[in-house]
């Protein structure tokens, strides 16, 4: 069992070395542009940029596919919904389903847009470690501190949560194996029985998580963590000229997409 969403692919490509803040801004801007612009030509420009970026990241295509596969049903659903409910003169009708060329076109467009969106997003998550990403987000959220939003603390919470997801998966796996060795079967029976069969797994997992949280809090205090205090970083965020190039290039791509 493995979490495939927001997975990081360790590497040393140009995209890996870029500042997470620049990457986040570029990806967000591109995502917005994707939704603002609705023509196949614009979509083609953004898709080309996304494919180019993915190619530059040096991540094998299989990794995108793994992240995308769980979302496949969403794309399929979008497509079907658009085909069925879109207006236009039908060229094919069956009972309440009226398929029009306009509907087909719209469905294709919206599905492709989703694919490109996921591709753009995965370039960000595949090339940026979660800790760098939350650091970047905390920096971008700094203006909110004036409104007394504890951005650094929130970022730390997210970082810790992300850090412990793989650990919890390993522990979940061990506990499930141990209960299977005692005869538990997680695949048999109806929904009710299956839910019940999770009790011997979830109780130890929660107990373990709370214990771990307690220990982590103690360990952090022992290492002088104080909420609200100014923290320094081992790897301070540092923008280079290449980050500026990324932002300019992204702006150019967005403009090109809007103009074609």
């Amino acid at each position, binding site marked *: 069992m493995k979490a495939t969403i927001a997975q990081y692919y360790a590497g040393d490509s140009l995209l890996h070395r870029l500042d997470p803040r620049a990457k986040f801004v570029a990806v967000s801007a591109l995502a917005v542009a994707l939704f603002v612009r609705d023509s196949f030509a614009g979509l083609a420009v953004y898709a080309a940029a996304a494919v180019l970026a993915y190619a530059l990241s040096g991540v094998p295509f299989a990794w995108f596919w793994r992240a995308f596969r769980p979302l496949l049903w969403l794309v399929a659903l979008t497509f079907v919904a658009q085909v069925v409910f879109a207006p236009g003169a039908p060229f094919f009708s069956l009972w309440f389903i009226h398929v029009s060329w306009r509907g087909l076109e719209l469905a294709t467009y919206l599905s492709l847009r989703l694919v490109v969106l996921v591709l753009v997003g995965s370039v960000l998550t595949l090339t940026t470690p979660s800790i760098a990403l939350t650091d970047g987000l905390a920096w971008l959220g700094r203006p909110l501190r004036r409104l007394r939003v504890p951005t650094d603390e929130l970022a730390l919470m997210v970082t810790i949560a992300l850090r412990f997801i793989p650990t919890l998966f390993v522990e979940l796996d*061990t506990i499930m194996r141990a209960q299977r060795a005692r*005869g538990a*079967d997680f695949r048999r029976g109806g929904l009710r029985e299956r839910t019940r069969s999770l*009790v*011997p797994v979830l109780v130890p997992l929660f107990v*373990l998580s709370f214990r771990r949280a307690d220990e982590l809090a103690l360990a952090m205090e022992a290492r002088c963590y104080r909420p609200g205090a100014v923290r320094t970083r081992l790897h301070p965020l540092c923008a280079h000229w290449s980050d500026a190039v990324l932002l300019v290039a992204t702006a150019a791509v967005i403009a090109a997409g809007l103009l074609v």
Partner: protein
Amino acid sequence: MSLTCGGVSFSYEEARAAIPALRDVSFELRAGGSLALMGASGSGKSTLLQVIRGLDAPESGAVLLDAAGPVDAGYAVLQREVGLVFQAPELQLFAATARDDVAFGPRRLGWPEAQVGAAVDTALDVVGLPPAHFAERHPYALSGGEQRRLALAGVLAMRPRLLLLDEPFVSLDPGTRRQLVGILERLKAAGVTLLLATHDVDLAWALCDELLVLGEGRVVAAGPWDFGIDAGRLLAANRLREPFFVELWRRLGRDPQRAPRSATEAAEALS
């Protein structure tokens, strides 16, 4: 229950490559025998135990239980007679009472409730947690050592004929450790076959007739304890050492092969 591993290989599927954990592991353990499974951390001990219990299927090779293989009828039943005690098994306790936790396994086996009750009482007795006093307690209200023994009872209640233990002595106080050694000795005397993965060479020497050393997933040594000329180098290469009594016997100029297994035996030999 006798156990035969023939050419067992297994790899973990990681994100970028398969990492081999067991490579062509072959050995035999006769019914009623006891085998110490040793080797440096990451040498494949835990993986081997899980493959033997059937939690992972070997990529090649086979695990034979009482000479029956996966293709034979009744293999699933035999697998249920293999008990596996995980590392730190107390982390897997979940029920509201000690009795319910121990009863989990027997109930999964579909035994009638009367038989489950009897098995639970016996298992609690065996691990030194008398049911009259402990059965209704909450597992998390017990001490660490009691929790470890309770988790062991949960496996013993299923009446295993082959018992696999993964580092059962880790982080136990000397008193509990001694208690656990006593429990394992009694199980052995009752005819249960033991396979004990441990880093503790002294306890391995005290409890087990035979030795299996894994190094990077391969069998480095298998069979009866042998303290010949190569033994020291082999043990050191696998981050092990000779048991205390063996070293003592060697230093006393006696045959290390006949070293005593316990302080009692040593006292008898020396007086």
